[in-house]
């Protein structure tokens, strides 16, 4: 066999899906988990990893990461970002379809899969475009995209031209059991805005994006989800009200899930008060009350995943007056530590925090990862929970160094990352 037999000993194994939290050994053979706990003493391993003092968790699944390839390789590449993901303990990345060209033909998703396999670090899954070239008007060939491996469809951050097109797109996706990934934004309400409409946008004289840009879209989308029965996922909700609307829909049995992205869990409009381009996000950072609403949504599992919303940029993209900067932050390096910090700060029990990065997103994507069951693919992250480090350009693995968390102290350092039983990252 080309894949090594690996034994991981002495670590604290945390697997929220299987409700495990104990010091357990773990054996890997043929890329899969062969044994947990009472491991066979005569399991002959090629590699033994001493995980004493370390935590062993399922490899992380990032629901939204832009790899910038094809089309924007001056920002980042599949090579650079899949390696950065591995260094961050991430074993599966889901990339939205707004590449250039757009993921609206099998050729583009096949190219992305091929490049990711060549790199051999994190695994990449992709969302197909909901409409041709994301034009918001013409449905894409969703069946062909699904056959080529797209695990869902999305129109990324581009609006659909009408509610009728949205309805047809949902119906067509539902035909093939495809999940629709939604960016909740009413384009007319958010037009030209670059900051949450509130005290800070008023002081800075920046065009604001009202809360209603999100809640109006969620209300409309929920109505069409109910009408069509499509399975849908709201990515990166930012307002407390939208979270409550989704919670209500879930209670009513609507097949809908939602996530939050790391920046919105730590930052608010107040952080942009100094025109710092690193705080330019789309959707925008909201109020501290909204941030609390998101944390509440994570606690009660309305939001079943946390993603990085990784958007690596070249330095020039942020070197401009605030409205002219490009939105988004590079987030692969800080996904695990800033999720662990949520537990540290008592916002979320540790097992729930890890669940939001593992079995939570796995369930949304309907993928057999994010847990450490016997026979499952050996996707594993081993980290030192006691290690503290500082995030800066030198410690970041992503090609994009744009982050609002520069200089922050990060808890938890990844020591090993395994994907399909292969060690794709080891560091100290």
């Amino acid at each position, binding site marked *: 066999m080309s894949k090594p037999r690996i034994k991981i000993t002495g670590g604290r194994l945390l697997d929220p899906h299987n409700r495990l939290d104990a010091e357990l050994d773990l054996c890997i053979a043929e890329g899969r988990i062969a044994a947990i706990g009472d491991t066979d003493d005569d399991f002959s391993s090629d590699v033994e990893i001493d995980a004493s003092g370390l935590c062993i968790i399922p490899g992380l699944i990032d629901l939204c990461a832009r790899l910038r390839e094809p089309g924007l390789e001056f920002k980042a590449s599949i090579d650079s970002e899949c390696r950065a993901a591995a260094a961050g303990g991430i074993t599966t990345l889901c990339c939205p379809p707004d590449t250039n060209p757009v993921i609206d033909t099998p050729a583009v998703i096949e190219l992305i899969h091929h490049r990711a396999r060549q790199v051999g670090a994190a695994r990449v899954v992709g969302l197909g475009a909901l409409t041709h070239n994301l034009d918001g008007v013409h449905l894409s060939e969703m069946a062909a995209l699904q056959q080529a491996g797209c695990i869902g469809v999305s129109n990324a951050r581009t609006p659909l031209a009408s509610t009728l097109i949205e309805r047809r797109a949902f119906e067509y996706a539902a035909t093939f059991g495809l999940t629709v990934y939604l960016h909740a934004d009413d384009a007319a309400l958010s037009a030209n805005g670059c900051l949450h*409409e*509130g*005290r800070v*946008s*008023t*002081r*800075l*004289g*920046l*065009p*604001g994006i*009202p809360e209603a840009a999100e809640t109006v879209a969620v209300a409309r989308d929920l109505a069409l989800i109910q009408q069509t029965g499509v399975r849908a996922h709201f990515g990166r909700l930012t307002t407390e009200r939208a979270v409550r609307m989704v919670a209500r829909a879930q209670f009513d049995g609507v097949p809908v899930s939602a996530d939050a992205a790391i920046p919105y869990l730590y930052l608010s409009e107040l952080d942009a*008060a*100094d*025109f710092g381009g690193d705080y330019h996000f789309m959707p925008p950072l909201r109020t501290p009350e909204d941030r609390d609403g998101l944390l509440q949504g994570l606690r009660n599992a309305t939001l079943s995943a946390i993603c990085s919303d990784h958007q690596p940029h070249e330095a*020039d993209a942020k*070197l*401009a*007056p*605030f*409205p*002219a900067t490009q939105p988004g932050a590079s987030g692969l390096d800080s996904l695990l530590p800033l999720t662990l910090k949520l537990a540290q700060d008592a916002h979320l029990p540790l097992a729930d925090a890890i669940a939001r990065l593992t079995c939570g997103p796995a369930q949304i994507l309907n993928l057999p990862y994010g847990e450490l069951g016997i026979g499952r693919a050996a996707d594993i992250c081993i980290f030192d929970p006691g290690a503290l480090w500082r995030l800066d350009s030198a410690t970041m693995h992503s090609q994009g160094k744009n982050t609002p968390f520069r200089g922050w102290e990060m808890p938890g350092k990844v020591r090993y990352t395994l994907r399909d039983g292969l060690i794709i990252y080891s560091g100290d």
Partner: protein
Amino acid sequence: MSRANLQITDEGKLRHFLSTEGLTHALLSEILDTAESFAGVTEQSVKKVPLLRGRTIVNLFFEASTRTRTTFELAAKRLSADVLNINVEASATVKGETLLDTLRNLEAMHVDMFVVRHCDSGTAHFIARHVQPHVSVINAGDGGHAHPTQAMLDMFTIRREKGADFGRLRVAIVGDIAHSRVARSQIHALNLLNTGEVRVIAPRTLLPAHVESLGVKVYHDLRDGLRDVDVVIMLRLQNERMKGAMLPSEHEYFQLYGLTEEKLSMASPDVTVMHPGPINRGVEMDSQVADGPRSVILQQVTYGIAVRMAVMSMAMQQRPSLETHV
């Protein structure tokens, strides 16, 4: 906060002039006092002082402007500085050069001060953060954020009309507060000068979210809002606001918010009427009011030169390497 630190030296002096927000009562008073001393210069037959001889000031305008640019140019010339007018809209950035490239190129020509106007809020702050330490930046208007020299010439006008005690004054600002950088800078300046009461008067579509958080009382009815005020500042209504869904028509706007002699009778008898210009007669105000005895609109323009001379000379005196350049 770093907003303030960016504009002020460690000794509390003016280094850049980006926004009235974050400055101090003392600094605003110093600007007004200095402007008072220059007001005499502009009335002399030889209208020049040699304070900035040998300095190069660049008017870097990314947005069209006649009045503001002209008064900055006159102010610089009366301080004996060399002035360069650059209309960037028509040149470099169109070709893909970034703002920072433009800046570096101009800096390489040994410029001492940038006077900047740009359609994006935050541009002057951005430039101030990236210029070499000996270069000063004056904000001549950035998006909807700030237009501090306009606000200071308005404060100067009020002080000349009403005296230095702002505490007993009620000031009302009428019109498109939401999109007005002038209004924001005026509100901060009025509050820093301890104005008794600052009011804004407008329909909801022309008020920004949480406008009261700027330190103003909100009125939707012009007559109510004008009651007993000592100063009325009318804002210019951009034509494009009419075309969107902000307002139904010029006619209705004038009916409700246009300043007429009749509505003005609600105010204090010696009320002063101001407008940053240019006026839309018959939209924001009646010609009778604009040209009437209470209007100081033309004085505002004249004072603009003295105030800009004051700000330029103050900022230039704080340059760390001033001596080596002489």
